[in-house]
């Protein structure tokens, strides 16, 4: 079987962890599987690089110098822990030092020019993965595997030049990845590919944005026709709810891609929505596994699941949101009001997470990120108050969104009633409700202090703590 394995930041945080990865890959290879490894930057490094880029722009020479030393020490230490063979270690140490030298050059350049373009920022961010991939390569070599390491660009991933969140030219990418990696796999090699980074057709480095390494894994999986993609994280797959809120939360054994998307949007630690795109229509299976508990529970994501009608899969809680309420009798029967609201928010780059308007049309309620509340209320007031259309715009920041997710809700009367009865029984007031007609998701808003109790109520009502309910 052909498997793309992606290892996130915490999976490669220490040398010991990298050693663990080497053992996992080695045992898979010995079972006859073909493995492609995709690796993220060491835990915390990408954040450090972002800071370095910004400090360089502000001409903070001292920070850049200290950072160079810190990165060198950390990567050398991790490499030393992960690789035992001294000649392999030597090779990796040289690679790390040379790569860091290049980073220091570009940061110095930024320092002198005092200008950070999205293009140079992507280049700087690419160093996290370019430093971690060689260490995993060394560790794999150390356990006797035939291996090589490549950047996403060398592996054949081509994107547009939307720096910071580049989009793959999927067909070109598929063709090139196949051309470059297929021969390696045929030779029995385990290619180690940097996650998150790619390049334009002219070879300029780009990054794939949030969740980028997962995206790299699915792109390679789709290009190489992999049967499975394994996403290694530090938890036992996706859970029915946050175990910190609901102690009886269980790992979800199976979810459809669409259910996983719904969960990701509403705050569950799932894959980034874009990451599932390349395999959305394929029969590729995604497994979300725990690197610290490889034989423990896992979640399998598949194209379609047979959902038992009347069941829900998970309850998520999204915090750090704010509710914006726009009201006024003048809005009733006034076409274009909602368009104006969205236009104003769009112009201020404020993303709307949830929308609800009653048929009376006298108010529109929105959920946005909490840190944008002041900005949003202010922009809406500036643009819309005083025209006679809207009387009042208010923001409330002590709210949270609870989402109930599951394909089993579709075409089943009574789910909403059960959800809200369970919440009401705890004496919790629901402020706002939304359900798309896909029926995969019911979202509602309660006071932030009521959030955990509301999640527990729904979790209990649908007996999500008991695995048999699936």
């Amino acid at each position: 079987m052909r498997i793309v394995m992606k290892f996130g930041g915490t999976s490669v945080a220490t040398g010991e962890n990298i050693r663990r990865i080497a053992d996992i890959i080695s045992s898979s290879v010995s079972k006859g599987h073909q493995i492609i490894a995709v690796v993220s930057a060491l835990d915390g490094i990408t954040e450090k690089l972002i800071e370095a880029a910004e400090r360089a722009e502000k001409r903070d020479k001292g920070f850049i110098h200290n950072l160079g030393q810190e990165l060198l020490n950390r990567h050398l230490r991790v490499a030393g822990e992960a690789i035992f063979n001294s000649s392999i270690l030597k090779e990796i140490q040289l690679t790390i030092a040379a790569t860091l030298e290049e980073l220091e050059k570009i940061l110095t350049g930024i320092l002198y020019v005092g200008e950070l373009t999205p293009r140079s920022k992507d280049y700087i961010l690419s160093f996290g993965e370019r430093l971690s991939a060689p260490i995993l390569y060394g560790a794999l070599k150390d356990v006797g595997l035939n291996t090589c390491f490549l950047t996403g660009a060398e592996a054949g991933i081509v994107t547009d030049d939307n720096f910071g969140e580049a989009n793959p030219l999927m067909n070109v990418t598929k063709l090139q990845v196949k051309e470059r990696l297929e021969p390696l796999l045929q030779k029995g090699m385990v290619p180690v590919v940097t996650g998150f980074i790619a390049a334009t057709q002219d070879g300029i480095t780009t990054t794939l944005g949030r969740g980028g390494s997962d995206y790299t894994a699915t792109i390679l999986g789709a290009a190489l026709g992999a049967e499975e993609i394994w996403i290694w994280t530090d938890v036992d797959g996706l859970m029915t709810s946050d175990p910190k809120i609901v102690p009886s939360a269980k790992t979800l054994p199976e979810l459809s891609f669409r259910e996983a998307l719904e969960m990701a949007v509403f705050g569950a630690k799932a894959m980034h929505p874009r990451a599932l795109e390349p395999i959305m229509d394929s029969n590729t299976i995604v497994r979300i596994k725990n690197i610290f508990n490889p034989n423990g529970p896992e979640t399998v994501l598949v194209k379609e699941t047979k959902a038992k009608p009347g069941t829900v899969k998970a309850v998520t809680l999204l915090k750090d949101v704010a509710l914006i309420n726009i009201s006024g009798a003048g809005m009733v029967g006034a076409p274009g009001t909602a368009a104006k609201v969205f236009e104003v928010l769009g112009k201020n780059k404020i993303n709307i997470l949830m929308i609800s308007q009653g048929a009376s049309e006298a108010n529109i309620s929105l959920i946005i990120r909490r840190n944008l509340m002041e900005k949003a209320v202010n922009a809406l007031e500036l643009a819309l108050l005083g025209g006679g259309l809207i009387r009042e715009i208010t923001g409330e920041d002590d709210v949270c969104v609870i989402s109930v997710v599951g394909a089993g809700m579709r075409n089943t009367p009574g789910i909403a009633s059960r959800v809200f009865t369970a919440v009401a029984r705890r004496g919790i007031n629901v402020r706002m409700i939304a359900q798309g007609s896909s029926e995969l998701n019911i979202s509602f808003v309660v006071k932030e202090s009521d959030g955990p109790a509301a999640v527990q109520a729904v979790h209990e009502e649908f007996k999500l703590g008991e695995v048999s309910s699936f």
Partner: protein
Amino acid sequence: MRIILIGFGVVGQSLAKLFIKRETELSSLYGFRPKVVAIADKGGIAVNQRGLDLQRMLLIKAEKGTVAADNEYGNSKMSVFDLIESLEAEVLVEVSPTNVKDGEPALSYIKSAFKAGKSVVTSNKGPLALALPALIELAEHNNVYFRFSGSVGAGTPILEFAKRCLHGDRIISVRGILNGTTNYILTEMAEGRVSFEEALQKAKQLGYAESDPSMDIDGIDAACKLVILANWVMGKRVTLKDVSIKGIRGISLKDIEAVAREGCTIKLIGSVNGRLEVKPEKIPRNSPLSVGGTLNAVTFYSEFAGEQTIIGRGAGGIETASAILRDLLDIKQELATKLLS
């Protein structure tokens, strides 16, 4: 609308009081909801991204002398420049004390606000008299708005009258009394038959004149306003150094009595007619410019609509604050249009 207020003296405090007093009407009639996110005075600053409680700020200012003394939002370390650059706000209201030497620090505050994408409303004549053409260009370049109607005539809408009511016409020349203090002194001399010194003393007692009255009596204040008028109304690109200035120190009771016999009076007149000039002039008693007390009066000579004179009080905290409010409402309108276009 989020506002950073620089200067919390008479005008700044009057503006705060105006916001408090008219909160409901401003919101219901104009959809204007001012949120003062920071105030800076000599002692430091107070910041609250969610909007400062103005009542509380007025109280602290009265009790402690600076808003920086507020134990929750006060800050005596943060620089005003950091504030202007980093705090999110639409408008900077600059009402710190006037400095006609170099316009600082107000001039730099206004420039950094433009660079930070913030519009500016000011009644501060210093920066305007010294650098108005440059400031207008900078505001346009940065795509923000710059309003200063309180700088001439305080609450009397002299600048708007010329710019809006005479829209489409061509203003050929402007003449007027632009300083209330000197007008009070000259009126007092003529009516009370007292010397210049006596009239000045009385003006000081009534609070019309500063302890150092030179800005007013030497004609500098009037010259500053003349520069603003010339730029804004007549499109001239001039600054304070282009004005020939003569104050009223040399005017004696005898001079006034002499012109009175001819049915005239002496007024400190600023005029733009080819050149810019501030000097005491003989004015017939029946002229519309012959106004008494602390009043200001400006006559516009337009090519088609003829001659118009606008008269009103030319100084005072609440009067100036009302002009600033007009400017803010104007910017609110502009921003709303921009957001919806």
